[in-house]
């Protein structure tokens, strides 16, 4: 039997080794707003094994219901069983919106499910809104506006899925804000049966290696970031010096990563990490849109660049035009003097 849950928003809760991904809770917080705007329910979809505690976290982030498939075969993410199970649920329950993190797992799973259910899927959205839309002279109430940079970041496109029952989107980690609720109630946990099938084992995991990243850019309150403009690895040491003085984390632009100034896990931008610290200091970063997309929501931004026309100044609160090799040592010295 098909039940229509016309206005429901689903969030796929991703877990790795039983630990839920931050992006899933960020999406629940966003999903809560979308569901309220449409008068629908917010459902967390959780697959794994022995992960019942994660459901509490889902409710704390606004879910009304959790669809829970708990089975040893689902302990680790694998494309075939996860996509088969989720496809079945989408077909049966017809949610209006399904959101996934734009992680490796989300980008492996979402297209497979979208293809099987012939749903629209938009990758890497940077904003999601509900609005009534007039498209080709037809009016569509309460569509999902899926906003994403496109064409190498040179344009921002709003994508809609006007004529299909299910609208799907992926969103990168750190783009939406996570808001745990202070007052929340335990919602309904609906168990989802899982019956193994032979296709599920067409791909088997032989071994897994995961190193917990010690870099925590997202949690840093101050970030000092350097770019290609610093010229050499030796000059880039200034970025570390300033970060050390301020008790900040060090980051870099993609160009700085490509030049070998800084390891990839410290890259800020569209293909790196999205951050929103209290203070972001950009040194020798010209500010291509891909970089700005990852830092422009910072509370305060200081740009230090020798080129007065560098695009980074357009998103900055304070601009210092000058040679980083002279400005940064002055900054460190002045700060140390103030602390005395």
């Amino acid at each position, binding site marked *: 039997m098909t039940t229509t849950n016309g206005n429901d928003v689903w969030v796929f809760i991703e877990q790795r080794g039983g630990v839920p991904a931050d992006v899933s809770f960020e999406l629940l917080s966003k999903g809560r707003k979308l569901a309220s705007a449409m008068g629908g329910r917010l459902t967390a979809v959780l697959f794994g094994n022995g992960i019942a505690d994660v459901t509490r976290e889902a409710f704390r982030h606004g879910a009304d219901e959790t669809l829970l498939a708990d089975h040893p075969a689902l302990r680790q993410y694998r494309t075939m069983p996860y996509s088969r199970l989720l496809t079945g649920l989408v077909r049966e329950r017809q949610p209006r919106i399904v959101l996934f993190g734009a992680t*490796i797992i989300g980008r492996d799973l979402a297209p497979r499910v979208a293809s099987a259910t012939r749903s629209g899927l938009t990758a890497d959205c940077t904003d999601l809104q509900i609005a009534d839309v007039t498209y080709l002279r037809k009016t569509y109430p309460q569509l999902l506006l899926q906003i994403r940079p496109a064409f190498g970041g040179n344009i921002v496109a709003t994508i809609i899925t006007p004529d299909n029952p299910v609208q799907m989107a992926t969103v990168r980690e750190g783009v939406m804000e996570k808001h745990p609720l202070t007052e929340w109630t335990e919602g309904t946990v609906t168990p989802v049966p899982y019956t193994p099938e032979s296709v599920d084992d067409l791909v088997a995991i032989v071994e897994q290696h995961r190193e917990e990243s010690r870099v925590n850019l997202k949690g840093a309150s101050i970030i000092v970031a350097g770019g290609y403009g610093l010229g050499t690895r030796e000059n880039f040491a200034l970025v570390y010096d300033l970060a050390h003085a301020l008790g900040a984390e060090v980051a870099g632009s993609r160009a700085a990563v490509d030049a070998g100034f800084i390891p990839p896990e410290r890259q800020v931008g569209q293909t790196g990490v999205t951050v929103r610290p209290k203070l972001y200091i950009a040194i020798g970063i010209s500010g291509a849109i891909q970089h700005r997309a990852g830092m422009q929501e910072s509370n305060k931004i200081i740009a230090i660049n020798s080129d007065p026309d560098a695009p980074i100044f*357009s998103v900055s609160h304070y601009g210092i035009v000058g040679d980083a090799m002279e400005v940064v040592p002055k900054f460190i010295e002045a700060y140390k003097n103030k602390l005395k």
Partner: protein
Amino acid sequence: MYRSIVLVKQVPDTANITGNVMQEDGTVNRAKLPAILNHEDRVALEVALRVKDRFGGTITVVTMGPPRASDILRECLYMGADHAVLISDRKFAGADTLATSYVLSEAVKRIGAYDIIFAGRQAIDGDTAQVGPQTAEKLGVPQVTYLEEIVDLQERTLTAKRKIEGGYEVVRAALPVLVTVLKDAAEPRPYSARRMMTYKGARTLMEIEKLTEGNPLLYADALRHEYESRDLFIDTLTMDDLKLDADRCGVHGSPTKVYKVESVVLAGGGHAIVEPTRDGIGALIDRLMEDHILG
């Protein structure tokens, strides 16, 4: 012996936007960008070529695109692909990833039996990484995305290393399988001079028809046979050739629509200018401390 299919795409070179493609209003003139073979697809072909070098077999490259996408197919032939197929039809225009994967999967079925389908993880013009998995789903085969390395290939089993969040995993996949490869999976080989000499003359059906236009001595059918006999014919498939459902192709078959596009134009100014002097920087630090941003 493994029969491989490599899915490739011609993309605008968005990574190298230089001054002459920027318009006065700060937006990009797409038409002026050079069209290139998507880099990760080139890597995918290289991985397929290494499988062929080691185990033998055949490689067919497939692209869906406008007639001029034949350029990238010739490049694939220069690298070492055995056959090339262009899927082209005005009715495919405006396809999103769902409509594209429908057409590609039907073309793959038409090409015949295969063991491994290779594709780049994503194309630089959309960065969606969706067409690979969606094509696999339509073909009903498993997928291994984010491939870093083929570890082993034995009989009907592929062992591969793939990237996962914060690390990697090794998986064993039953053939047939579709894999999408990352840019560091292999360094693509340069074109072979000998193959370039041979295949620079490879032509699609549209290109052959163009040769015969205005030349009463040339007949397209006869010319096509000549190209075929010299192994220089790039197989060309339209919507009718593939007997496709028009409602699933192009704009009609695409559930996602572009509702609005805004060029990113930089807003100038808005920031306070701080003098690069001791006093200027000192005053900035005072201000940040007052605001409790610096402690």
